[in-house]
């Protein structure tokens, strides 16, 4: 996440790009832009409303939003404390924990899904006890979707929040200490409000990643309409039977991505009301 410094209005002479750099840059741009443009070109605009009002499409959209929201909520509830531990305390094996936290960022989602299956599947290492003792079955359920999305998306939140906690103002926390505040009070009343923007940014990133999750979900939770079929899975399904529907659903996901990006960008701009 680079924070580029804007140089608009700078009197310095503009740099003229040499062809050897400009040409590859243009090709790169084309690779990124052409698929998205094509998606817009091929969108059946006239049938769009009808395609999206289809029962299964609406179910998939609702399920996607619900699961992604739940995954983000879980990430906040459990991920923020872990981020705090990583940023503020020193415990043996902290580096290992940090590596573990970031692993899902680079791990192929299918592998994540398989690992989840081996852990929480009905005959999995832990899953068998969940089943035997509590009658809880995670694979191929909506709860499984949420777990898969949390597994893949939580690192985005943890990494963002840990960075913010690290650079958060130690001086203010110290001042709070001299005002009788316990560690938890400081966390609640000083630290959390101060990292608010990063908390939102991390949540949005987490939500976005959860919404697009495909590999881990289909491996661990399967592809059942109404219970585990989220938007990306629905797109994948529709591609074989009804390509127009697939495009329409994809358009919704693209629009969501754009909204998320805009929200993030606004967060990264200098705070408007001086809230910090």
């Amino acid at each position, binding site marked *: 996440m680079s924070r580029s410094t804007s140089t608009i209005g700078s009197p310095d002479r503009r740099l003229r790009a040499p062809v050897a750099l400009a040409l590859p840059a243009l090709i790169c741009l084309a690779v990124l832009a052409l698929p998205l443009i094509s998606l817009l070109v091929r969108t059946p605009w006239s049938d769009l409303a009808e395609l999206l009002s289809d029962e299964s499409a609406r179910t998939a959209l609702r399920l996607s939003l619900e699961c992604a929201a739940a995954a983000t909520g879980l990430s906040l509830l459990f991920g923020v404390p872990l981020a705090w531990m990583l940023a503020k305390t020193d415990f043996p094996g902290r580096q290992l924990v940090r590596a573990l936290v970031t692993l899902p960022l680079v791990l192929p989602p299918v592998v994540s899904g398989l690992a989840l299956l081996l852990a929480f599947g009905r005959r999995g290492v832990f899953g068998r006890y969940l089943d035997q003792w509590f009658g809880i079955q995670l694979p191929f359920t909506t709860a499984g979707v949420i777990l898969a999305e949390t597994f893949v998306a939580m690192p985005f939140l943890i990494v963002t929040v840990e960075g913010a906690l690290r650079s958060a103002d130690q001086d*203010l926390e110290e001042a*709070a200490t*001299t005002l009788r505040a316990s560690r938890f009070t400081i966390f609640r009343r*000083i630290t959390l409000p*101060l990292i*608010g923007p990063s908390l939102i940014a991390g949540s949005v990133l987490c939500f976005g990643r959860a919404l697009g999750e495909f590999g881990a979900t289909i491996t661990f939770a399967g592809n059942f309409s109404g219970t585990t079929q989220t938007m990306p899975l629905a797109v994948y399904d529709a591609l074989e039977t009804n390509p127009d529907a697939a495009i329409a659903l994809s358009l919704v996901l693209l629009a969501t991505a754009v909204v998320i990006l805009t929200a993030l960008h606004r967060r990264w701009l200098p705070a408007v009301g001086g809230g910090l």
Partner: protein
Amino acid sequence: MSTDGTGGTEPGSALQVSVRVQREDLVLDVDFTVGPSEVVAVLGPNGAGKTTLLRTLAGLSTPSRGRILLHGQPLLDTERGIDCPPERRPVGYVFQNYRLFPHLSVRENVAFAARSSGIHRAQARRQAEHWLERFGLRTLAARRPGQLSGGQSQRVALARALAADPALLLLDEPMAALDARTKLEVRSELRRHLADFAGPTLVVTHDPLEALVMADRLLVIEGGRIVQAGQPADIARRPATEYVARLVGLNLYPGLQGLDGAIDLDGGGRLFATGAPADARDRPTTSERVLAALRPSAIALHTSRPENSSPRNLWEGRITGVELLLERVRIEISGSPSAIVDVTPAAVAELELAPGTRVWLSAKATEIDVYPDPAEPVANVGEEV
């Protein structure tokens, strides 16, 4: 080393400190007491360990060994394994940049300590209201710290610290963040608030004027050690170190005083003083280490060697600097010894004093104040009595 001035004896003092703090670049090793409701200014150059001392008292820094007693209760005693965590020490801290919570209003800042200690919101607000009233902050109560001036921020910081009902108050350079004009207004106000506070107070500063105005007693720290402690007036008259002498604007010469009263200065040169070690009750039997203080206005300047001059001290030097003060001109002279000399602007014009000019300096022996050098602790003063 015991350095109490008005603080009184150990049992009567509200704060007893004896700590040693190891920092990468410095070892702070101090031992002092502060009386109840006494305001002590901690004066010293940058990096002397002033802030480290405050942080240690507040529990934000951990000393390698030491003992801190506040009203007889130990906040720290490394020998007995006591180290009260900062949030449980009844210590108010006004930080150098105030460190107000930017996301909370002035009212919430002031109510913070009460809320932290579990007091109900409504009651915490009522208590805050009392402090806001007292510090004239009622009209600013809803503002965020970002909307306050420097002077207002300082008031909020002090109100916030006092609202926690501390038994000891620490202020770290409370004026440093203010501009010159605001300083003047805030200083007397701050002094008033400190006078109202019942417990011992430590104010860190490197501004001697601030120290003189606000404190009952000064503690001068250099290189992690207390080099001088006492009444502001005494310290201003008889500085113990070069640093203090420069602060109060005196020439200070360490040297060895012989039986004849002549002082051989460490930096070269010789001065005669009448009387002789004013503090020594009996005449010294051998040469002793002394400090000789000489006011810049007590030195006369001449452009040629004065004929049949009466002052016993006469030496030559070269002007290295000329600086205009309020009503006089301060001349820096290198020689044996070097000196700063205050003259009138008229004299500067008349004698054509400028950097590079060779001058003769003269000073009466009666103008030189000689006292034992405290840096030389035992020597022979008092030991035989």
